[in-house]
């Protein structure tokens, strides 16, 4: 179980205000969109496109926070605000960190929606 990846109060609040079924749909949408955002981060980094990088990080942050994926949200926020330079000096490690946190998040979300 990787439930620590998700803040339950935020997630339960989402379910309470929008309904079980809807949250399942919303999680599916996020799980379909998030890998694209991570790809976008890597691609923008490879092409040295700071604006695209920032925008992808911004989207990831925004969606992560919606589901209570606070750690992922924080990592994405650092990417958004830090820009490309710290990524380069750390050999892309911050992107990898966000990607592995996302793996924990997606697993937790799948468990929550199935449960």
């Amino acid at each position, binding site marked *: 179980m990787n439930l620590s990846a998700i803040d339950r109060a935020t997630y339960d609040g989402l379910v309470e205000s929008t*309904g079980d079924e809807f949250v399942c749909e919303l999680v599916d949408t996020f799980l379909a969109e998030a890998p694209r955002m991570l790809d976008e981060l890597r691609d923008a980094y490879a092409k040295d496109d700071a604006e695209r990088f920032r*925008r992808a990080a911004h989207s990831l942050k925004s969606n992560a926070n919606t589901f209570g994926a606070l750690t992922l949200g924080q990592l994405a926020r650092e990417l958004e605000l830090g820009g490309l330079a710290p990524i380069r000096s750390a050999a892309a490690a911050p992107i990898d960190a966000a990607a592995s946190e996302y793996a924990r998040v997606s697993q937790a979300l799948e468990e929550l929606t199935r449960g």
Partner: protein
Amino acid sequence: MADGHGGRLLLVDDNKVNRLLLARTLELAGHRVASAENGRVALEMLRRDGYDLLLLDIEMPEMDGFQVLEQVRGDLALRDMPVIVTSSLEGLDSVVRCIELGAEDYLTKPVNPVLLKARIGASLEKKRLRDQQKEFVRRFAAPEVAQDLQQSGFALGGKRVHASVLFADIRGFTPLAEAQAPEETIELLNTYYTLMFDAVASHGGIVSHIAGDGLMAIFGAPVELANPADAAVRSALEMIEMIELFNVEQTSAGKPEIRIGVGIASGEMVAGYTGTNERATYTCIGDVVNLASRLEQHTKAAKRAILVDATTRRALSSSLSPEALGAVALRGKTQSVEVFAL
């Protein structure tokens, strides 16, 4: 608005999760929601369909939220629509910029549904009041005045303009009104005013006052005209023509004919809003206005339908040939005035 509470909202967000979530939240609150995935599409939808409120994300491809705000505020048809910005953009800068660009409110994502509901409710209520106000202005003011109000806002006080003023009324209206039922008189007046308003508007003028069977119209303010005097005279000629057509109908219905008198004077005057902040009217003030009124009264004695002053006469295009009646001592004027008839 649906069932008195909900509104028709347009939601703009390039992020699918955000869009679905906001739409769901808003629908649960009783609103009808349409969504767009970027600013360009949103503007197309705004211009095509009517919405009560716009929920706007800032970070978007193609056209971002700042650009949408600029376009909305620059568009007379859209600029009164409340815009609530929803963004997870960092920094106070963007909040300030949105408010400066006219956004009603700024909510940070993830949006708190309770806060969102309250802000939307308040914005829709404000919009409803504004719409009501606009409707009053539209109904009680000339369209040009309503537009002037919308563009430059309302301020009592005037500015000097070069314009022409036209007074018109029905000759022998009192005996006419006494000879028929009040209902018939109202009907007659409504037809008369419809014809007169049309003649004024079709030459770029505005009707600033109506009282009884008389009206005052302004040419050249608030909308500038190339030749206000010529426009006023052509409007007067159209009035006479309309009344003649109307009289043909009256005669065939066995009803009395009507005659009108028109006085026109041109020159510098002060135009603007007079009254109080609660109740005001767009009008012109100055000697020229008094002169136009005196000329209109003099049509009866002169037995002419249209009388104009020398300033108006000088501005007329050559296709019109007014007849000089010489200097006339008008009531309320210390010096006699050159009068011309058309």
